[in-house]
């Protein structure tokens, strides 16, 4: 079916091929659709490899990725769809030999190692932990992993905003809302940031901040890099520029005058990533390097009820008077209140099950949103939905796979096979592991085996050595035979040199546990969970051996130690495609970054302050670490309050613009932590309720 375009969209599509245009408008005004049609036109005239599509976050590149992937006729070379970080890494990797020395790396002939969020945190722990042992950071009550991530965040902000990393503490001290006792911790965080930077130079490590710095200071000025841009990126699409950081805008400021064509796209009311350094006002300055400006106003989908609701709710958030007559909100809004958190979660699952059963909405058209998504919340919701035969997914990385019985099972066997680690396997651990390993083994028999054939000091004993025939019969010879196979496998392993943990687990899985007659034979899901674990261990092994020269065997123990300290490793599900018929469970911001509309949204626990205030981050502050921050000024309580208000209002508008049919808003009297919260979002809804009640003659929402 041929798409029809509005006049504004047509203007964008038909722009001369050599134009640099700035397109702005609200969400849903068809900007990205116009950009895709423009891309199609460009690709008819230039080879794909000459097109750069720059987006602030991978998920925002999805429409472009889908366009190329699903275009049945497209042939030729392929456009690059990149984030600033991806671009910086690609270029730094390519031109590393030309810049490593001048950038200050101690061993410039060695390759750089690009740190992930997790490996960066691991390295930061090596800087911070010894200092904590000396008593530093004792005025900070947050858990240590959050200390690491906030120091890294400060470094990142310095790089993308463009200030020196030794200015961090001085800036942060301008926050009048901080406890005075925290001031020394800011100096300590500053010192750790500087130490971490030196550590990176010593070990050729590139965290995100250093990638950005090295790219801008050393790679971008190279003629080779310019030539690369001329060859590969003469045509630029830069979407959601308001969600990107000043460094990305700087790059485009520099490149746009030299490129052949550009289309920059800005969502007027967005800016949801300001806490990550996004700077909408800085983005706007890019107009100056464009030769034309187009404003998209038309909204495609008729969401009248939702628009009225959004206006009504916004006036409540702002404490402004409402319109004289409030519309009937029942068609678009359901408010429910629960006593306890689990009750609310069950209520969500029941409501969704009902909707799917009535075929009123498909699972893929539903999202469940919370301000933050803990592993526990995600897990509970997944279970509740699964019990109702509803598929769900979350794009958030998770440590939950470490709690999977299959994963615990193989780790228990790893400990059994390596007594030299001196990590005891409890009877319960062994019992659960055996139930995973031996099909149809019930808990009573598994317990009996663990009690009879196992002692932490001697390991797993032989079934054949059991002298009590009654005991053998209770365990059964069938299970006894399997136990002997396990023992024999472990003994053979023990008779040879130890293997790195990931290789040990692969072998254990392939040669024993996934063979016919054992528990993981054709258990796809268990296989996938163990694969996640093995991949995480393998990456960690390679990281430790390449960077720190650790021997491959010791990396396994280090992995377990690090996991137990709560640091590693999240499993990132490399999902390029969301599952088609599944409910998305996500933090509200993450959903906004998918930039897609759905039929129904569920907002959880709207009384939570998380909908309003930013996470408690005493060692960082996104508002002070901004480009437009004036040194010498202060960040007051009022500014903080207003920033929270503005943030919530943006968030709410962004979500409602992406809700096509119905919003379910759930509150709870006693939250996850057992306390009562009546945050500003709940208050806004209560005001709305009163207003509706008043104007509609007693009719409630």
């Amino acid at each position, binding site marked *: 079916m041929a798409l029809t375009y509005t006049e504004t969209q047509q203007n964008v599509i038909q722009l001369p091929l050599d134009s640099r245009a700035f397109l702005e408008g609200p969400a849903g005004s068809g900007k990205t659709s116009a950009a895709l049609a423009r891309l199609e036109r460009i690709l008819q005239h230039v080879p794909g490899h000459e097109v750069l599509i720059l987006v602030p976050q991978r998920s925002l590149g999805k429409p472009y990725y889908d366009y190329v992937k699903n275009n049945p006729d497209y042939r030729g*070379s392929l456009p690059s769809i990149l984030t600033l970080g991806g671009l910086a890494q690609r270029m730094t990797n390519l*031109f590393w030999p030309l810049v490593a020395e001048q950038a200050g790396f101690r061993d410039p002939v060695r390759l750089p190692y690009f740190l992930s969020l997790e490996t960066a945190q691991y390295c930061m722990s090596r800087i911070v932990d010894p200092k904590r042992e000396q008593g530093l950071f004792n005025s900070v009550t947050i858990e240590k992993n959050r200390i690491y991530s906030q120091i890294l965040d400060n470094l990142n902000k310095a790089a993308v905003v463009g200030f020196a990393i030794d200015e961090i503490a001085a800036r942060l001290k301008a926050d009048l809302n901080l406890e005075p006792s925290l001031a020394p911790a800011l100096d300590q965080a500053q010192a750790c940031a500087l130490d971490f930077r030196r550590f990176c130079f010593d070990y050729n490590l590139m965290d995100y901040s250093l990638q950005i710095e090295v790219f801008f200071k050393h790679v971008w000025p190279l003629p080779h890099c310019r030539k690369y841009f001329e060859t590969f990126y003469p045509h630029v699409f830069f979407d959601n520029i308001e969600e990107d950081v000043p460094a990305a805008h700087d790059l485009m400021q520099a490149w746009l005058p030299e490129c052949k064509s550009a289309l920059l796209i800005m969502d007027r009311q967005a800016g949801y990533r300001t806490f990550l350094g996004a700077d909408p006002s800085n983005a706007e300055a890019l107009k100056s390097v464009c030769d034309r400006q187009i404003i998209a106003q038309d909204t495609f989908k008729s969401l009248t009820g939702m628009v009225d609701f959004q206006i009504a709710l916004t006036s409540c958030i702002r404490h402004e008077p409402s319109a004289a007559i409030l519309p009937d909100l029942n068609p678009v809004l359901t408010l429910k209140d629960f006593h306890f958190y689990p009750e609310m979660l069950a209520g969500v699952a029941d409501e969704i099950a009902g909707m799917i059963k009535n075929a009123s909405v498909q699972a893929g058209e539903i999202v469940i949103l919370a301000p933050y998504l803990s592993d526990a919340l995600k897990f509970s919701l997944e279970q509740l939905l699964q019990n109702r035969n509803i598929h769900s997914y979350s794009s958030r990385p998770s440590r939950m796979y470490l709690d999977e019985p299959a994963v615990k099972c193989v780790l228990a066997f790893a400990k059994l096979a390596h007594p030299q680690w001196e990590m005891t396997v409890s009877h319960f651990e062994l019992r659960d592991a055996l139930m995973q390993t031996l099909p149809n083994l019930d808990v009573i028999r598994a317990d009996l085996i663990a009690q009879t054939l196992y002692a932490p000091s001697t390991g797993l004993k032989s079934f054949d050595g059991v002298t009590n025939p009654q005991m053998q019969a209770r365990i059964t010879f069938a299970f006894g035979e399997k136990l002997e196979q396990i023992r024999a496998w472990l003994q053979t392993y023990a008779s040879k040199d130890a293997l790195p943990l990931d290789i040990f687990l692969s072998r254990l899985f392939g040669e024993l546990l996934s063979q016919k007659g054992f528990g993981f034979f054709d258990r796809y899901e268990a296989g996938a969970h*163990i694969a996640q674990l093995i991949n995480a261990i393998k990456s960690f092994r390679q990281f430790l051996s390449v960077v720190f020269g650790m021997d491959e065997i010791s990396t396994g123990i280090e992995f377990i130690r690090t996991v137990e300290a709560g640091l590693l490793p999240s499993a990132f599900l490399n999902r390029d495609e969301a599952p088609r018929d599944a409910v998305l469970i996500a933090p509200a911001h993450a959903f906004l970054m998918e930039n897609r509309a759905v039929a129904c949204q569920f907002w959880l626990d709207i009384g939570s302050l998380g909908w309003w205030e930013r996470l408690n981050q005493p060692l960082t502050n996104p508002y002070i670490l901004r480009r437009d921050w004036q040194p010498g000024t202060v960040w007051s309580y009022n500014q903080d309050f207003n920033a929270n208000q503005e943030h919530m209002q943006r968030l709410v508008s962004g979500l409602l613009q992406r809700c096509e049919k119905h919003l379910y808003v759930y509150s709870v009297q006693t939250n996850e932590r057992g306390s009562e919260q009546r945050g500003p979002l709940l208050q806004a809804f209560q005001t709305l309720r009163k207003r509706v009640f008043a104007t509609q003659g007693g009719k409630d929402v």
Partner: protein
Amino acid sequence: MPIETNFIFSANSFQDYLDCPRRFELKYLLKQNWPAEESEPVLEFEHNAELGNRFHRMVHQYLNGVPQEILLASIQDAALHEWFANFHAFYSSRKFVQIFSEFSLRAVINQSPLVAVCDLIALTADGNLWILDWKTSAKKTRRENLNDRIQSILYPFIALECADRIFPDIRLQAENIHMAYLFVQHPADNLLTFDYSPDSHQQNRAFLTATIGEILSKEPGTFECTAEARRCRFCVYRSLCERGITAGNLAELEDASDLQDTLSNLDFDAQEEIAF
């Protein structure tokens, strides 16, 4: 799960299908991660693959303008040094007017996308297009085995299908396309070249069309296991298919060159194919 209409066929996925349809089903349709060992010794394989990666990266850097002497100064491994010297001797003997290193191309057959990730695409002044692939394996693959590899079919096919989109000012014919493999561990007699022709293009189109048609027409669960059971020694799914216990040893392949030459999953130089 039936195959998606926009499934992207690549050299790896085709070769997996040709090696074993069941492996194709498990890997690409069911997307089943099965964490068993593929071959032994794992660390040796990792080391070889890492060296292969480093070589490809160095060549990519060189082709993007990083001077040879700077690259040579950064090599600490004698083998890499030698490989790079062999590569350089070959490359400097050629006169290319336009090159694209680590370059992805996409073509379409009956609405099914095909993708190729080429180590180098290079155009000569007389209008010949070379698709070059760097091989870091110690043994030179036999010509007849390489000829049968899907890469030798797919890459020239895609290159010709895309040629007008990459080089709009030149009219490339099948005769102008050359697919070549450079075995960089070898200082001499290290290039295997396959010339292309309109006939090869037609044959390749027919072969690819038929293979895609065959794959698309298969019902889930009907992808059969390979009849050549020795392949299973080098496949992660062997327990799932009840095709053995232990992984094959790389040393075994020394005596089975026909197998070694065609095992797509054990190619140190296999490019990671991008998601398009």
